[in-house]
């Protein structure tokens, strides 16, 4: 099809959508819309994961991000009743500068990535690594310490969130 393989088509469409939705996240005025666009972006990224045979990761991704984190966002937005355009018209100058800075960074990154040797991804072996079994093995052997210590992280986050979140008792 027009000289591209299906994979390339899928990659192209997913990438386009991801970028589109990402832009919508940034430029939408309503936070709720932003959340929804972000969820869409995550789905596109999950599609990429699938494309790269990282099935388990794709599922976890959907569950954690779309299922948990974004819901949390929505929850907070609703809680604060921000479901409307609360953001006042922002000044054009910071925005312009931000966009210029972003553009410069993109230019720089692309410039520095140019000339990299073309390394094509191959599905050989890739189909093996993304499985639950394989990932579990790696996680509980090589990455055991980080896995354990991540509990401290979550614990800390939990304690912190609770401490901040609870109302002061007078």
């Amino acid at each position: 099809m027009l000289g591209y393989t299906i994979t390339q088509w899928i990659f192209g469409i997913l990438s386009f959508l991801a970028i589109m939705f990402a832009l919508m996240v940034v430029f939408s005025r309503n936070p709720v819309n932003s959340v929804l666009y972000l969820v869409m972006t995550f789905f596109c990224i999950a599609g990429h994961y699938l494309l790269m045979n990282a099935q388990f990761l794709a599922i976890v991704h959907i569950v954690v991000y779309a299922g948990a984190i974004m819901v949390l966002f929505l929850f907070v937005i609703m809680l604060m009743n921000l479901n409307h355009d609360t953001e006042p018209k922002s000044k054009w100058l910071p925005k312009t500068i931000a966009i210029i800075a972003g553009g410069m960074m993109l230019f720089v990154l692309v410039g520095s990535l140019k000339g990299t040797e073309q390394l094509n991804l191959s599905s050989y072996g890739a189909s093996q690594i993304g499985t639950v079994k394989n990932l579990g093995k790696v996680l509980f052997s090589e990455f055991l310490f980080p896995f354990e210590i991540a509990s401290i992280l979550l614990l800390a986050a939990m304690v912190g969130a609770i401490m901040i979140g609870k109302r002061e008792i007078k």
Partner: protein
Amino acid sequence: MIKLIALVPLFPLIGFLINGFFGKKLSKSLSGIIASVSILASFVLSVLIFVELQGSAQKSHIIEAFSWINSGTLHIPFEFLVDPLSSLFLLIITGIGFLIHVYSIGYMHDDEGFSRFFTYLNLFVFFMLLLVLGNNYLIMFVGWEGVGLCSYLLIGFWFKNTAYNNAARKAFVMNRIGDLGFLLGIILIFVTFGSISFNEVFDKAGTVGTSVITAIALLLFIGAMGKSAQIPLYTWLPDAMAGPTPVSALIHAATMVTAGIYMVTRSNIFYSISDVASEVVAITGVVTALFAATIGLLQNDIKKILAYSTVSQLGLMFLGLGVGAYSSAVFHVTTHAFFKALLFLGAGSVIHAMGGEQDIRKMGGLSNHIKITFWTMFIGTIAISGIPPFSGFFSKDEILAHTYEHSPVLWFLGMVTSMLTVFYMCRMLFLTFYGKFRGTHEQEHHLHESPKSMTIPLMVLALLAAAGGLLGLPEFLHLPNWMHHNLESVIKRPDPMTMDHDKELILMGLAVLAAGTVWFFAHMMYRVNKVLPAAKEEQLKPWQKLIYNKYWVDEIYDAVIRKPLDFLSDIFYKFMDIAMIDGIVNGVGSAVKGVGSVVRLAQQGSIGFYVISMVLGVVFIVLLTFLIK
């Protein structure tokens, strides 16, 4: 005896210490006696040493007191040199010093700073003795500066008077200008010869280049100019008359101001080697002599007249030195010490009689009231005028004879000077002692002869002034010139006179004739015609104004040196130091603050801005590292 030389300066020092520490507790007479006795002791010792030296074959004795400064190759012991030159000066200093001490007991009797006066005077004698006794240039310099200090203290003796204080300060500072030259000369001597002891230096003097010798000689001469009040450093001496009159006699006439002559004589080898230097000395001398003599013509202050006369006579001595007549110059120093001390003390006596009045316009006819003073001063005037057989004639004549041999032009100028001298001295004498009294009635009533303690020194000095010529009778008359023989060992390269005797006789006759003529002229003018000096400056003719105002030299110095210096100092302080240098230093501080306040503007508090700057930071770093490379 010579071994005891250290005692000679020590006695005045002891006198100084006693008077200095206990002066206030001592009675006036005791304090004066202590001071005088200490000088007398020195004098007696000096005489003994002098006699011993005359009898001994060895003409130069070095006695080391202690080691003073050592620095690498520089060794400066504190040591004394006894030789004919220094022993002669010892006699002059202690002898005349003693007379003046005695005189001062009477003169200063009513002053509240009586003991202080003697303290200073003793200290002065101490330093003066050090000056002439030192066996190296630095000890000489010690005495040199020391007498400067005493001069400062004594000129400003009446410290409540601002004008006197200014005069004292001026004397010190001007002397210091000369001293700097002297000091640099000493250092150049050390650098050249590796030593500053007289004998070692003089022995090696012939071995180095003439230009170095010239430099040394000129630097030393700068010192002499300051101390001996030569152009351009002479203006302090007339001002120095602010001090009590005995001080003027001792320091500013007889001893200290002749230190320059002593120094040049001591260093005669340098001047003998360097023609340039001796030319400079001679010309400076004669110009000063003439210049000061002209100023002396129209002065009205009795002491100022004597002061200018001193400057003039000193110039004459330098003229002698410059033409190589070292012993003649020393001879003139000696006779000058006699008659100038006499004149000053006499003037002191006059002032004493007049109750402090110094203006000759207000005097007149004093010869009847103060006879001793008059006669002694008369002798002094004759002596300075160079009328034979008084002392001044012989010494001045020797100098002029040498000068003629050297350069008739200089001789002519010298002659003019001595004629002017005769004129202003006569003017002073006649206006003071003859004619009618012009002072107030009260002063007239008060006129009286001075006490014995004052008149006796006057008489002694008069005797010396009259007979001092015996020390150096003219050789061509086959008379013994003791002075000349005495100093033979000191003059390293003598410049014997080759003039034939007839010529010398003619010159001598000319001098006497000139002096006589001028005397007669003055006599006609002031005694016969009774000309009186103008009471006010406006009455003067322009050329008289010029002279009367001393050619405005003081004012010129003021405008050329003092004011610009003050101005420059002000500029340095207000503009350079405070505004510029400190301004820069403080400016750095302000710059820090300025930059700080600019930099902190970046800290806007807005997250977006922080993030942007972080991104931009990354962008620039990547740009710098990858794209520009």
